[in-house]
């Protein structure tokens, strides 16, 4: 892995981290409404996985906690801020928020709140590519909770039968809203379900961004060779509530303390400093500059008017 790539990984993780932190501040200030879903502690998964794709030919189907993947695929901070704060000029015209963003020019097709619903759709996207002889790989995500939805099963079986170029990350962040893994499924590793579909599956540490990248690169390569879909379960911890209204008091404090030591941004910064790839001063500068970019973007976005009410009556049909 080149030093350039390693710095890129860190840069995108810091962007995701600071964007997330900005949204949490805006929520507390009453300036962000609806659900604010933090990806704190999960940045390595979003960034490492999306970096494995070729944004000129592949396609991203992110979930609501994958802001890092949006950035890797070229979404700008302003664009994401306008979407999150539902301001005039946002791509969704104010019709939706909460991370459900699509930008066909960037090959990003976002989520809906019904988790698992976009996996069959990701299949269709790459099926179309296959019919036209293109080599598009789709990367999509589901949580440890969402993995229990029937559509996920149907989609994986379908993708396996048709050998579709699909990479599914199961982001196991231990809790589905307030429900722990133990009440969601009985298998010790969700990736073992791959056996039942006749596809590749593995479980990895989701706080190690380089491991995520390498594992996803291998999955993308298999997909491109026509070997079909892969399931990659990434083990992380959801360090905030389901959304910011949720005080997550049901999560044992010791568990959070334990995972805090494995914070992906901090551990990767330390690693790159230790390897002499970047200095601690440069890391600090990167974080400060990114924070400044967020603050400037928030200022610009909050000055924008709300979308005109007439938008609510447009585009039900095209």
């Amino acid at each position, binding site marked *: 892995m080149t030093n350039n790539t390693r710095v890129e990984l860190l840069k995108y993780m810091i962007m995701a981290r600071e964007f997330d932190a900005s949204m949490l501040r805006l929520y507390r200030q009453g300036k962000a409404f609806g659900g604010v879903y933090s990806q704190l502690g999960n940045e390595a998964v979003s960034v490492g996985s999306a970096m494995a794709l070729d944004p000129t030919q592949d*396609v991203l189907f992110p979930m609501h906690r994958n802001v890092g993947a949006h950035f890797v695929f070229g979404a700008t901070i302003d664009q994401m801020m306008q979407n999150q704060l539902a301001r005039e000029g946002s*791509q*969704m*015209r104010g*019709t*939706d928020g909460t991370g*459900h963003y*699509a930008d*066909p020019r960037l090959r990003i*097709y*976002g989520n*809906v709140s*019904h988790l698992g*619903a*976009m*996996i*069959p*759709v*990701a*299949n*269709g*996207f*790459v*099926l*179309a*590519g296959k*019919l036209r002889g293109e080599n*598009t790989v789709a990367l999509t995500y589901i949580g440890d909770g969402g993995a229990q939805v*029937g*559509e996920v099963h*149907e*989609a994986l*079986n*379908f993708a396996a*039968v048709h050998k579709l170029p699909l990479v599914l990350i199961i982001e196991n962040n231990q809790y589905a809203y307030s429900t722990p893994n133990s009440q969601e499924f009985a298998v010790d590793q969700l990736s073992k379900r791959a056996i039942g579909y006749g596809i590749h599956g593995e479980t990895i540490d989701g706080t190690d961004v380089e491991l995520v990248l390498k594992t996803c690169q291998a999955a993308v390569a298999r997909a491109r060779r026509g070997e079909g879909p892969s399931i990659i379960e990434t083990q992380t911890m959801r360090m905030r509530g389901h959304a910011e209204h949720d005080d997550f008091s049901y999560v044992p404090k010791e568990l959070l303390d334990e995972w805090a030591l494995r914070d992906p941004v901090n551990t990767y910064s330390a690693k790159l400093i230790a390897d002499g790839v970047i200095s601690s001063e440069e890391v600090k500068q990167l974080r400060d500059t990114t924070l400044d970019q967020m603050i400037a973007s928030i200022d610009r976005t909050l000055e924008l008017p709300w979308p005109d009410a007439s938008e609510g009556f447009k*585009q*039900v*049909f*095209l």
Partner: protein
Amino acid sequence: MTTYLDAIADAIRIEMRKDQSVFMIGEDIGVYGGAFKLTKGFLAEFGPQRIIDAPISEAAIMGAGIGAALNGMRPIVEMQFMDFITNGFNQLVTVAATTAYRWGIPVPMVVRGPSGGGVGANPFHSRNSEAWFAHATGLKVVCPATAADAKGLMTASIRDQNPVVFFEHKGLYRKIKDEVPEGEYVVPLGQAKVVREGTDVSVITYGSAVHMALEAATMLEADGASVEVVDIRTLVPLDEETILQSVRKTGRAVVAHEAVLTAGFAGEIASRIADSAFTFLDAPVKRVAAYDSPTPFAPTLEKAVLPNAEKIAEALRSVLAF
């Protein structure tokens, strides 16, 4: 003369020959040619890339259609029976129906299959569920009654930029035969048709009930009553103007469909008539629909709960006598 089933197959075949982006996906549509043999010969002509047999996974099939549509294709998704659309309901109403509004990206997809009762097929192979989808916002809903309309509306549906739910009536597949134009034929979505002109009362209807209404109109001739029959053909978009014109002329209306009564689409039509043609009405608007139950299996039960020409004739007489 062409059957309703052949007319639909013809429309699909013509579009598939013309447009490489049109393909079909469903269960048993390839080698087997579909449960009703609508796609007989399609696999041989178009190959397994464009006639795709999928596992029994309506959500996966529906999603495959949506995703392919997002990526520039025009999929035709077959539900082996429209009853099974419930297994793909989330894909259709949550994803397909909201994509244009939220993202501004077209989902040019047709979901089609056999619906309706009267053939002794049990509660799970007989449902008329068009009202659910008319209520979903973002889906066009088509219910052809004749072979020519089935062809023309199918062509229009395939060419539409929006998701279309196309309800074929399995009882009409081989029962109805009419003159169907050869070659490319389009009936635009959102245009009702006066299928029988009359002056005393209007029946506003669609699908299989159009044939019941025409039969009832003939029965009423004996009473000296002139019945107009309007086939709305598409629920969404709805051609309200043609409905209102007819009711303003006759001053009386019966709304009929094979689907169950409560929260059925007849309620929507009756309400629009009340809103916009109230002062033209000489009698309350009456609805004829199936009894509010699942569609039963035994012929005696099924015949009893479903509407028919006699029930429509009875409603017409009561409206005329008001």
